[in-house]
Each structure stands twice: as C-alpha cells, then as structure tokens.
C-alpha cells in the first residue's frame, strides 16, 4: 500500500481550530476539564501538545521585511520516515505502521518519556501523573489510523473549511505542495514560500506549504535524528549486549578451565 501523507497549506489556514476540535471529537480526547487552560496573552491554546491534544494551531506574529504576517501552523506528529521516537521506544508502543503512519498504542506505553526527549520536533508529550513514581503516559496523532486504513481521511482533513488540509498518496501530496509553492512565489508575493518535509528524516508524513522560512514557524530548518539517539541505537546497545555476552561466556569457560587447572595442581 502506498505511503500516504497529509499536506498542510499554511497559506490557506486561518486558525479556526476546526482541526483541533475535530481531532478531539473523533479520538474522544478531553478539553478544558483536563488542561485547565488560561489566556496567557495569545489566541494560542493549549500552549503545548499533550496526550489529550494531538494537534493544535500555533499563532506567530512575524514582522517580515516586506509585510507583517500572522502565521498559523498546525502542529502534530510528523510521521517521519525515520522516526527517532520509534527507535528509542523501549516497549514498541511506537511503531512504523501501515500507510507510513507512525502508530502509537497507548496501552503499551510505560511513561518512560524517551520519545518526548528524542523527537527532533518535540511532538510526543508526556503527562506525568506522579513525578515521584514516574507514572505517566504519552500520546500523539495517529493520522486517524482507524479512519485512514478504511479509505477515509483523517478527521481534521475532513473538517477543514479553508481547504488547507489534504490527504493522499505521498508523491501526489508532494506534487500538489510544489505546485502551491510555485503559485505563492510567482503570483501571491511570497518569495520565501517553501515545501517542508519532502526529504527530511526519511521524508515526513506531514508536509507543510509555508510562506516563510521554517525557522519563523518554530520548525527546525534541518531536522535530524538526534546524534545521541543514533549513538544509542546503533552503537551502545549492540556494544552492551556484545560485552555482556562475551563476559558471561568467558566466565563460564574460565570456570571450567580454572577448575581443571587447580585440580591438576592439587594432584601435583
């Protein structure tokens, strides 16, 4: 089955939060009773993703050199082709799933929080129930796996009134995004418009059409799997396992050799 992707056209998004609420409705997530948000001087709320908020809109006021812009970014799991979270998850709760979705099985999560510390986009958020015991759970966008594996679009895509969200085969979404970037650059006066997510991290499942450079939206310009997670997965784990194995085997062998030698010496 072809890898699917979500194209988010930030130039069309008007931050109506329809997607934020549709996601909660479809996935039975809690709102204010859970997060108890307050207004801290912005329309942006909640102020971060959480196990009860899998997508949200960031509001950024950007005084550009040519014009003032109020940038809106729909934040959520990027469904990386090469996902750091999958690599560091000790339980397998995070896995590469069908259609290119990075799936998450909440029952398996043990709250260790590695995903939240290794994701280059800081997407999975842990909600710690007890700081002392470490009781916690993580959660994130699943690209509405129950819908998308049944030929439907994610709930957010379905609800968007601005026609800013698209769901389809990844190569088609890339083509659509590139087309849109060209229109923005040539006809709408956005020379810095760009498509984000085409090749980064094994290609992202969430593609953005942006009117300004990614840094202005709070996105890393060159996202990469953290060096340390590569180190951990590719070097340290194998090293550890090898060294323990060797150690135990050598010990066993040495036991028999040493015992033999000692007995022989005693005989002597």
């Amino acid at each position, binding site marked *: 089955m072809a890898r699917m992707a979500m194209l988010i056209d930030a130039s069309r998004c008007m931050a109506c939060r329809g997607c934020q609420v549709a996601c909660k409705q479809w996935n039975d997530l809690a709102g204010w009773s859970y997060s108890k948000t307050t207004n801290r001087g912005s329309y942006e709320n909640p102020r971060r993703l959480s196990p009860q908020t899998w997508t949200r809109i960031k509001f950024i006021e950007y005084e550009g050199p040519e014009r003032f812009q109020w940038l809106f970014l729909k934040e959520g799991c990027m469904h990386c082709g090469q996902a750091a979270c999958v690599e560091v998850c*000790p*339980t*397998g*709760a995070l896995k590469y799933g069908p259609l290119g979705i990075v799936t998450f099985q909440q*029952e*398996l*999560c*043990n*709250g*260790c*929080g*590695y995903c*939240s*510390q*290794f994701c280059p986009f*800081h997407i999975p958020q*842990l909600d*710690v129930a007890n*700081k*002392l*015991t*470490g*009781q*916690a759970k993580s959660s994130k966008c699943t690209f509405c796996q129950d819908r998308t594996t049944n030929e439907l679009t994610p709930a957010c895509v379905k609800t968007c009134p601005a026609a800013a969200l698209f769901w389809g085969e990844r190569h088609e979404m890339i083509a659509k995004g590139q087309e849109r970037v060209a229109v923005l650059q040539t006809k709408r006066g956005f020379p810095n418009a760009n498509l984000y997510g085409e090749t980064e991290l094994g290609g992202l499942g969430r593609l953005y059409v942006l009117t300004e450079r990614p840094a202005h939206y709070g996105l890393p310009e060159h996202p990469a799997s*953290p060096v*340390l*997670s590569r*180190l*951990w997965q590719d070097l*340290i*784990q194998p*090293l*550890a*396992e090898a*060294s*323990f194995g060797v*150690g*135990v085997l*050598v*010990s066993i062998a*040495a*036991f028999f*050799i*040493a*015992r*033999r*030698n*000692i007995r022989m*010496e005693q005989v002597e």
Partner: protein
Amino acid sequence: MNFFLNGPEAGIQIRWIPRYSSLERFLHWGHAFTFLPLTLTGMVLFMPLLAPLARGEAGQFIRLIHRASAVLFVAVPIIYALLEPRRLLQTLRDLKFGKDDLDWVKGAFPYYLLGRHVAMPPQSRFNTGEKLNVVILVTGTVLFAITGAVMWFGRGLIPVELFQACVIIHDLTMIATVNMFIIHFYLAVVHPMMWQSLISMRYGYVSESYAREHHAKWFYGEERAKEMYAAEKAAQAKKEEMV
C-alpha cells in the same frame, strides 16, 4: 560452600583475621541487592528483546521498582559514610595504584582466569582487582545518581540535549559496571579458588593463609612482603632454570 552456609566446623583449627566490618558488609550487600533489581529493570528498558516486559502497567511498575531501588542504591553508601567515616577514609586512602598493580594485571590472566599458580606481586588490603572494582563502582554510582536524577526530575526543565546525554552516560556507565559485576561475581563467588572472599564478605573474616597469600602487604607489612615476593620470584626462576 559448606563454610559459607555453616561457618567454620568445630575442631578445625584456622586462625581467622578480621577483614570487613559489619557496616562494610552492610554496604556491600545493600549495594549488591539494589544493583540487581536496578540492572534487571534497567535491562528491560534497554534491550529491545525484552520490550514485551516493558509494556503498559507492568512497564510502569518496572520503572517504579527501578526508581525505588535507585533511591536505596544511593542511600546505602551515604548511610555508610555517615556511620563509619574514618574507615571509609582509610579505604579511600588504600586506593593507591603503583607498579605492583600493573604486574598484578599481567599475572591475573594465568592466575585467576586459567587457575595456574603463578607468582603474584604482593597486595595490600585490597588487591588490584578489588581496587579497580571499588573505583569503577563508586564512579558508577555517582554517575548513575546524577544522570538518573536528571532524567527523573529534569524533564521539561532542561534542554533535551542534556537529557539525551544523560541517557547515553547512564548507558555507558551501565555497560562498565555490569561488566565489572560479571567479573566480580565470577571471581568472588564462582571461582573455585576464591571461596574465602565470599566468606569474608558474609562473616567479615579471612583465614590467615588466605591473607598471607593474597594480601601479603596487609598481613606482613609492605617491606616484608616485598622481600618475600622477591625471594619467591627468585625461587621460581631457579626452578624453571632447572627444568
């Protein structure tokens, strides 16, 4: 094993020399018995093979055990230090390394691993291996405590790069200490020659012959031990010449 379980049999005349105080033994066993659950629970989080055990409620419980054990793991040495500060300082002073230690390492392969009775340089209260063990374990404990505390309490307060670095250091420390533990366990418990070390940690005593052989500098004093070693080496060399 008999001795370990039942102590010295009546009638056998062995002169026992005190080696470890009861608090030192408390420190050792306390540390060992918290290190084990820490290793096992930590392994569940570390090895992908054990992932099924790390899941869900069971996984949360395993993390809880890791944290509870960690608290004790750090508490035990601190309690020891508070209760027996002078002996601790003495022990730390004993952790000097010199040429004899290098020779010991060279001799360790045939002597300990293969069980051949070669001449080993005289050792003080702690032989080279034991000194290395202490150094690695003390350093390890400190590194575990710091990185562990950062990972436990620092999430959200520290940059993610720092958290990631702590995970790596925690891992590397674990590799070093677990390997050290494998060696320690082998030499202290399994090795056919070294059964007295186990008794010493349970009862606090070693036999005179053991002390003389393995910790000559401690038993005889440094000067005398060096003389005896030189004589022994000379005798061995002559023996080899004759053969």
